[in-house]
C-alpha cells in the first residue's frame, strides 16, 4: 500500500517531512503514528491507514516542500501484493481553472519579489540587511519586535498562545513573552474585543487577533462604536491605540461564512485606519507602523499570502509609513490598481497583458485608509485608463468609491470608462470551480484592460 503525503489543511499544497517515527521493517497497526508532517499551519502526525509492515521509506526525514499526494512510504499489508514504486511523485490533482491561464505560484512569487526589489531602488529607503521570508514569518517578526520595543504591547485572541496561532502567525510568542502578554481568549469575540479596546483606552496597545475577520462581525459594534468613534466624541480625550488583525477574504474552499473580504466595510468608518498588504515586506513594515499608531487600525491579511516569500529587512527600525501606496510596476498605457490578494491576481494576468503590447502601471494600495490619492492620480493622469481589481463583492465596494474619486479628480484625463473587476455578488460557493468563478480571474482582468484600451 502506498502512503501518500496527505493534504492536512485547506490551503496545504506542500509539506515537510519533519521526522519518521518508524523504520523499514517495523510492524504497525492502523492508527500508529508513522511520521510528523509540517503543514502550512502546524506540525501534524501521520497515522498508518492499515495494519502491516513498513516495506520502504521513500522520502527521507528533513525533506521540505513535498507536494501533496507524493508517495512517501510503502506499507506491506497482509494479503496485498507489493505495489510498484512510481518513478516520479504523483502529480497533484489537476487544478480547476476557469480560464486555463493561471500562472503557477512559484512564478508569481519570483515576480512579486523582483518587482519589489526594483521599486525599492527608486525609493529613499536605506540599505537594509534582507532575508527572504514568508508573510507569516514577517508578521510574526513584526509583533515580536514591537513587543520588545514597547512593554504596553500585548497580544490576545483565540489560539494565539498555547496553540501557537491558528495560522502559525503568533508561533513562539508565548514562550518568549509569557502568558501575561500573550493571551488565549475564550471564543468570545464581542467580549474580548471590547476588553482590548477598554485596555487601549486605558493606555495599553493591544494586538487583537481575529482567527479570521469573518468572526470580527461578532464584535463589529465594539470596533465601530467604541474603537473608531471615541476620540471624536470625547473631543480628543480618549484615543484607542489598537490593532485588529487576522486573515481576511477567501482562502481555499472554506465556504460562504469563512470567505469574505471586509475591506469595504471597515474603510467606510471614520476613525479607522485600514491596511491590506500584498507581500511579506509590506506586511512587516506596515504591521509595525500600525502597532505604533495611536489610532485603531484594521490590519487585513490574506491566508493564501501567508506562505508567499519576499525579501524583508531584518532590522527592527524598518517601518513602512501608513498611507503610502506602492507603484510596483511602472508602465505607461493603463493604471491597474489592487490591494492584498488582488495584487497577486493582477500579476497573474501580467504576462497576458504584456502579450497585448500593453505596459501597465500597477499600483498596490497597501493602505486603504488613508489612501495614497496622489500616487493614483499621478498615474491616471499619465495613462488615462484605469482598471481596479478587488476580491470583495462589487456592490457598494471600495473599488466603487475609488472609481468615484478618480473620475472626480481626473475627469479631464480619462480616455475611457473605469472598469472594476470585483468579486461576484454571491455568497462564496464551496465547489472548486464555482469558487474560482466567484473571484476576479485573469480573463476578466485582461478583458478589462483590453476594453479600456479599445482593443477587441
Amino acid at each position, binding site marked *: 500500500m502506498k502512503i501518500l503525503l496527505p493534504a492536512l489543511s485547506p490551503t496545504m499544497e506542500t509539506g515537510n517531512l519533519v521526522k519518521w517515527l518508524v523504520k523499514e521493517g517495523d510492524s504497525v497497526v492502523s492508527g500508529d503514528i508513522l511520521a510528523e508532517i509540517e503543514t502550512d499551519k502546524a506540525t501534524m502526525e501521520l497515522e498508518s491507514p492499515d495494519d502491516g509492515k513498513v516495506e520502504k521509506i521513500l522520502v527521507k526525514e528533513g525533506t521540505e516542500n513535498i507536494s501533496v499526494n507524493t508517495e512517501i512510504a510503502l506499507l506491506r499489508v497482509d494479503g496485498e501484493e507489493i505495489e510498484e514504486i512510481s518513478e516520479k511523485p504523483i502529480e497533484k490533482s489537476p487544478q480547476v481553472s476557469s480560464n486555463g491561464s493561471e500562472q503557477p505560484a512559484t512564478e508569481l512569487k519570483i515576480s512579486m519579489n523582483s518587482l519589489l526589489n526594483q521599486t525599492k531602488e527608486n525609493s529613499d529607503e536605506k540599505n537594509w540587511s534582507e532575508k527572504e521570508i514568508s508573510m507569516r514569518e514577517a508578521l510574526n517578526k513584526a509583533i515580536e519586535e514591537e513587543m520588545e520595543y514597547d512593554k504596553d504591547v500585548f497580544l490576545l485572541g483565540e489560539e494565539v498562545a498555547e496553540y501557537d496561532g491558528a495560522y502559525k502567525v503568533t508561533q513562539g510568542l508565548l514562550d518568549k513573552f509569557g502568558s501575561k502578554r500573550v493571551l488565549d481568549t475564550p471564543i468570545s469575540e464581542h467580549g474580548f474585543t471590547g476588553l482590548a479596546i477598554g485596555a487601549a483606552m486605558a493606555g495599553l496597545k493591544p494586538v487583537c487577533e481575529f482567527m479570521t475577520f469573518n468572526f470580527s462581525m461578532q464584535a463589529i459594534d*465594539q470596533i465601530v462604536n467604541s474603537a473608531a468613534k471615541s476620540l471624536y466624541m470625547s473631543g480628543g480625550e480618549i484615543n484607542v491605540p489598537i490593532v485588529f488583525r487576522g486573515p481576511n477574504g477567501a482562502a481555499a474552499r472554506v465556504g460562504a461564512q469563512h470567505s469574505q473580504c471586509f475591506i469595504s466595510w471597515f474603510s467606510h468608518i471614520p476613525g479607522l485606519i485600514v491596511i491590506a498588504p500584498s507581500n511579506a515586506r509590506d506586511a512587516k513594515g506596515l504591521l509595525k507602523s500600525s502597532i505604533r499608531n495611536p489610532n485603531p487600525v484594521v490590519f487585513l491579511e490574506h491566508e493564501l499570502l501567508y506562505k508567499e516569500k519576499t525579501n524583508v529587512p531584518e532590522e527592527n527600525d524598518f517601518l513602512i509609513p501608513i498611507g503610502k501606496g506602492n507603484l510596483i510596476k511602472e508602465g505607461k498605457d493603463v493604471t491597474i490598481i489592487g490591494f492584498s490578494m488582488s495584487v497577486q491576481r493582477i500579476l497573474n494576468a501580467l504576462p497576458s497583458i504584456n502579450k497585448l503590447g500593453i505596459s501597465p502601471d500597477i499600483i498596490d494600495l497597501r493602505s486603504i485608509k488613508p489612501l495614497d490619492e496622489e500616487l493614483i492620480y499621478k498615474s491616471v493622469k499619465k495613462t488615462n485608463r484605469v482598471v481596479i481589481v478587488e476580491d470583495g463583492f462589487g456592490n457598494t465596494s471600495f473599488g466603487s468609491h475609488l472609481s468615484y474619486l478618480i473620475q472626480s479628480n481626473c475627469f479631464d484625463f480619462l480616455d475611457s470608462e473605469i472598469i472594476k473587476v470585483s468579486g461576484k455578488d454571491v455568497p462564496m460557493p464551496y465547489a472548486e470551480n464555482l469558487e474560482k468563478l466567484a473571484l476576479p480571474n485573469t480573463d476578466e482582468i485582461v478583458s478589462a484592460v483590453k476594453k479600456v484600451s479599445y482593443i477587441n
Partner: protein
Amino acid sequence: MNKKNKNNFTNDQLLKFYEKMFLIRKFEEKAAQLYGAGKIGGFCHLYIGQEAVVIGILSSINSEDTVITAYRDHGHILARGVDPKLVMSELTGRKDGISKGKGGSMHMFSKANRFYGGHGIVGAQVPLGVGIGFAHKYRNEKKISRVYLGDGAMSNGQVFEAFNLASLWELPVLFIIENNKYGMGTSIGRSAAGGELYERATVFGIKGEKVDGMNFFNVSESAIRAREYIEKNSKPYIIEMDTYRFRGHSMSDPGLYRTKDEVNKMKEIDPVLMMKETLLNDYKIQEETIKNVESDIKKQIKDVEKFSLESPLPDLKELYTEVYL
C-alpha cells in the same frame, strides 16, 4: 456612632456626600428645564432618583480608581468631580463642553478624573470596563475598574462574555448593576428570566450581593465591602442596586408603561430627601447648615446654566478635527 454609619464617616464627610447628591439632583432638574426650552437636543437621560447609588459608591472609591458607565452618565461624571459647567455645556452642545460639544449627553469623558465615559450602546461599556481593569492589573496598579450597567444590559450577550473574562483572568473590576426596574419602557419582569440579576454573574464565580440602592448608607457599606474583597482576592465583585428613576427613560418618554401611583410611591423613598432626614435626625446636623449647602448649590446651578448658554457653539473647523490622532 449611629448604627447606620458603619463606615465612620464624619459629619463633614457626610455633608459633602449630601452636597454631591443634591448637586446631581439640581443639575438634572436644570437639564430637564433646558431640554424643555430647546437648549439641549437629542437624547437626555436623567439620573434623578438614583443619586444614592453613585454617591454611595463614590464614598468607597480611591481617587485613582476608574469609572465607566453607559449613557445615563451625568451623575457619574459629576460624582467624579468634573466641573458642572463643562458638563452642562456639553449638554447644550457648546465649545466649552467637556467633549467640546462633539459628544453630547451620552458621551462625556475625563481622563484626569479617571472617567472613561459615557457610552451609548447598551452593554458595550461592560467589556470596555473589564479591559480597563485588565490594564490596571497589567501595570500592577492598585486600582479598581468600576463598571456601571443597567438592568437592561443584564440581558445583553457581551456582558456575560465580559463576566467570564473578568473572572477567568481575575481582574480588579467592580460591576454595579443599577436596577431601576425598566430597560427603557420594558419592565425587568418582561425582559429578564430567572432569579436576581446579580446571580447571573455568580455562575461565573463572581461574588455579589443585592443592596437597597435608595439608601446612601447601605450602598456605601456594600461598596466598601466590595472594595475590600477585590483588593484582598484580586477578583471581580458585583453589586445589584435596587433603585428607581423618577423621570422617564429619556426626555421624550411618555411613561405609559408605569402608573403615576407607582412613581409617587417610590418618591416616598427619595434618596436625597432620606439622606437629608438622616443627617438632620440621626446626626443632628443643623438645618441651617444643610440649607446653606443647598442654597450654594442652587446658586452654582444658576452660574452653570448661564455659562452653558453663553459658551459659543463649536468652531466649524471642529467638524474635521479629532477623527484621527
